[in-house]
């Protein structure tokens, strides 16, 4: 009985962190669909989300306000990366490899700059709602977990509406289907690129803010999160935002179960094994890739 | 002797039938051509023969041996080599090196040979270079050997691709629209080069739009329309064929060139 509730707890925690992976994975898809670029700086957005919020909160800014300011700041960072790093290469029609390398380098620059500014000590945030966890069948459900689930669901519905109903969202989808045709219809493809970076950076920041109270953040958490997000996107079928979210849940669950049965040292190994398994056996993911 | 024989070749892309039940054979001697309007399925046919896209149905025989479903590199090694409708040169390499790469299947040196350079490897390298210069002379690019391939004008790029394919010493050379984008004078020169290649003993099969080139150069013509073979025969026979004239929308002006 005790073991069973421990398993339940494991599954719950896995799904909760899976939501975070899913949000990051959606960020990959948003940029990929708008441009065909795989942005390896995605993890930096997540790290900055937690880190900037931490800095603001420690300056006594109320949490909600701090979070809002952070999301805007990180979205700006996204646009800056797009302008400074991605755009010149995009204009030169650089190879996919060069693009990946440049965004990976941008990730490292941001990471190291953060190290210099805030140091290498892990930081954390207070939970959003400071109440004792709810109990259900012996499983403790923390309020932060509810925040993660709730925010993720709201974000996914909002994104769905954005892509289906708004003009901008539809233009972005048109770019995803066929960039040349979209350009011929008068859609400013280059604006879409900047917008996709802003959107995906904002999503990454939200993921970072949500997850930091349950773990911690440090200058170097970006890369593992980026890889998990990428795996989520692959598992869901690259280029499918909703698939990426499902992929995130799958990955979170698989990871939690691996840790449950094999020990916590294998957390990263489990994720990387899931990645290789999908790459080798089913590269189009569970839903089939978008193109 | 029959160089190439295709039997009931069919290719479907989902619902679209790009080739349907195409059967013909090509003699070892002379120049043959596949003609037909845009989208008739000519390139698709080349892709099936050269192993780049396996046929949905049907079989391909090269020198009376079946090659259906073999990998392109294996087919090339046997002596069937094709060029592409859109030139696929190695743009960042010199003109000479492009042709030297073509010698791959006729040479043997591997990693160890490259590192230790025994006498036979040095001889092989020298012969590769010499043969490549000869082929450049054949297509009239001898003076451009050291230029970067990407810096050649378009017409010369097409000739370089032919020289590179010839470097494999092919028994059958398949050219996909070699005259596309060439001017009158260049087309004339191309026609001569193709004849010379044929005279040297290589079977040539070309896809062409330029009727002047086809009628002047080819001995045997296969006509495709909507993926089907609608006629086959000598140039004069084809020029008189009713179905062919119709397929070209009464385009007699194309045919009497």
């Amino acid at each position, binding site marked *: 009985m005790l073991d069973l509730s421990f398993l339940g707890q494991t599954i719950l925690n896995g799904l909760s962190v899976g939501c975070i992976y899913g949000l990051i994975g959606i960020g990959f898809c948003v940029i990929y669909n708008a441009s065909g670029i795989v942005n390896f700086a995605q993890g930096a957005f997540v790290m900055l989300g937690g880190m900037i919020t931490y800095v603001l909160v420690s300056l006594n800014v109320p949490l909600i306000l701090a979070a809002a300011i952070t999301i805007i700041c990180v979205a700006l960072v996204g646009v800056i990366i797009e302008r400074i790093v991605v755009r010149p290469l995009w204009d030169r029609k*650089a190879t996919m490899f060069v693009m990946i390398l440049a965004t990976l380098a941008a990730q490292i620059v941001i990471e190291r700059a953060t190290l210099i500014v805030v140091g290498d000590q892990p930081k954390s945030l207070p939970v959003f709602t400071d109440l004792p966890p709810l109990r259900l069948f012996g499983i403790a459900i923390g309020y932060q977990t509810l925040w993660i689930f709730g925010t993720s669901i709201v974000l996914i519905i909002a994104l769905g509406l954005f892509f289906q109903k708004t003009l901008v969202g539809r233009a972005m989808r048109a770019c995803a289907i066929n960039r040349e045709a979209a350009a011929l219809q008068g859609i400013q493809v280059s604006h879409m690129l900047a917008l996709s970076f802003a959107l995906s950076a904002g999503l990454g920041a939200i993921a970072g803010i949500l997850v930091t109270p349950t773990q911690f953040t440090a200058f170097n958490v970006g*890369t593992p999160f980026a*890889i998990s997000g990428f795996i989520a996107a692959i598992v869901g079928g690259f280029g499918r935002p909703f698939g990426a979210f499902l992929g995130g849940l799958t990955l979170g669950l698989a990871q939690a179960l691996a840790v449950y049965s094999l020990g916590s040292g294998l957390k990263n190994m489990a994720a990387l094994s899931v990645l290789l398994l999908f790459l080798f056996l089913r590269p189009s993911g569970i839903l089939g890739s978008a193109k | 002797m029959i160089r190439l024989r295709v039997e009931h070749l069919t290719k479907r892309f989902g619902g679209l039938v790009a080739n349907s039940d195409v059967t013909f054979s090509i003699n070892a001697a002379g120049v043959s051509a596949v003609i037909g309007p845009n989208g008739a399925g000519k390139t698709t046919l080349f892709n099936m023969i050269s192993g780049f896209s396996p046929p949905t149905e049907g079989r391909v025989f090269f020198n009376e041996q079946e090659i259906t479903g073999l990998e392109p590199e294996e087919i090339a090694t046997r002596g069937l080599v*094709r060029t592409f409708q859109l030139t696929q040169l*190695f743009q960042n390499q010199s003109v000479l*090196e492009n042709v030297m790469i073509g010698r791959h299947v006729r040479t043997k040196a591997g990693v160890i040979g490259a590192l230790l350079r025994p006498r036979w490897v040095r001889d092989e390298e020298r012969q590769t270079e010499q043969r490549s210069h000869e082929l450049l002379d054949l297509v009239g690019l001898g003076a451009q050997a050291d230029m970067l391939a990407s810096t050649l004008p378009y017409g010369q790029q097409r000739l370089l691709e032919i020289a590179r394919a010839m470097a494999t010493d092919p028994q059958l050379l398949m050219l996909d629209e070699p005259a596309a984008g060439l001017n009158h004078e260049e087309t004339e020169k191309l026609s001569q080069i193709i004849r010379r290649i044929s005279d040297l003993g290589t079977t040539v099969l070309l896809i062409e739009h330029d009727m002047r080139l086809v009628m002047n150069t080819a001995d045997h013509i296969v006509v495709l329309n909507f993926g089907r073979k609608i006629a086959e025969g000598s140039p004069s026979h084809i020029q008189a064929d009713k179905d062919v004239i119709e397929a070209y929308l009464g385009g007699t002006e194309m045919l009497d060139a």
Partner: protein
Amino acid sequence: MTNSPATISSKLMAALRHAPAIAAAGMVAYAIADGGYIVTVVGFGLIYTIFVAGLNIFMGYAGQTSFGQNAFAAIGAYASAVLTATYGWPPLLAALAGIVATAICAFVIGYPTLRLKGHYLAMATLAIGLIIYEVAVQWQSVTNGYMGISGIPALGIGHYELLSDRAQLIFLAIMAVLSLAASWLLRHSRFGRALVALSGSEDAARALGINVRQYKLTAFIISAIYASISGTLFVHIVGFISPEMIGMNMVILAFTMLYVGGIGTTTGPLIGAIVIGLLPESIRSFKDYQDLVYGAALILILIYAPGGIASLDQVVKKLLRTKAPAKEVAP
């Protein structure tokens, strides 16, 4: 011999093309002669020259992608470290065992991985590098985890050991020269031509009878062997190995060197490794800034000078050409 201005300037250009490589070689010679602190820095640069030369064969010549070559440096490094420090093997035998193990691993890893394309290939290779890192951390009984392995003996055969800094540097220089010579020989051969062919167009290469998969895999294995050798040299020179030394930062550093020196050129790895190796020396006191500077340098190079220092002559040519008409209009 005519000495018209045209031939002189073309000779100058040819000299300019080789200037960076000559300068880098000069730096190595200076370090050997000087024997001071610079020896460590240049030695580090030479070890990386070998690693980057291998990367260059797979990426520069064959035009493929791998973010995981650190995995093979790690296998070479740990094989040497464990076999010599823990089991007392002679260094040369341990190095050979490491190379064989690396080649086998590269084959087993490369066979399924090189079927992938684009960002799938990029991510799969990145994952392989990360997995090896995790193995180095988690397989404590062999690797000693984060603590690493120390007490690795110096290189040597029998009683002859390379103990002095200068002897080690001369040995490293010989190894680097051999690596670059092998790279040059490979490039200018039937094998190297097949690699540049598949890099240019896989379809055209296949149409000419080149077995693209086989050549990619061979280039991958050769590149891994280079990495293994550099890993082995590293542990014997430093005497210590830990997972941090073979992580992602190694990959970024190597890419920066490759692009600074000039990807696809034979001497590019030497130029890049020496230049980037010396870079932190000028900003020694700011160790934290090191990776920041590498990353920023890499971005700038990718954007503004994708040909690296090796293409300096092209840049100069362009400058001269744009300046020439300006002179004509001047009174």
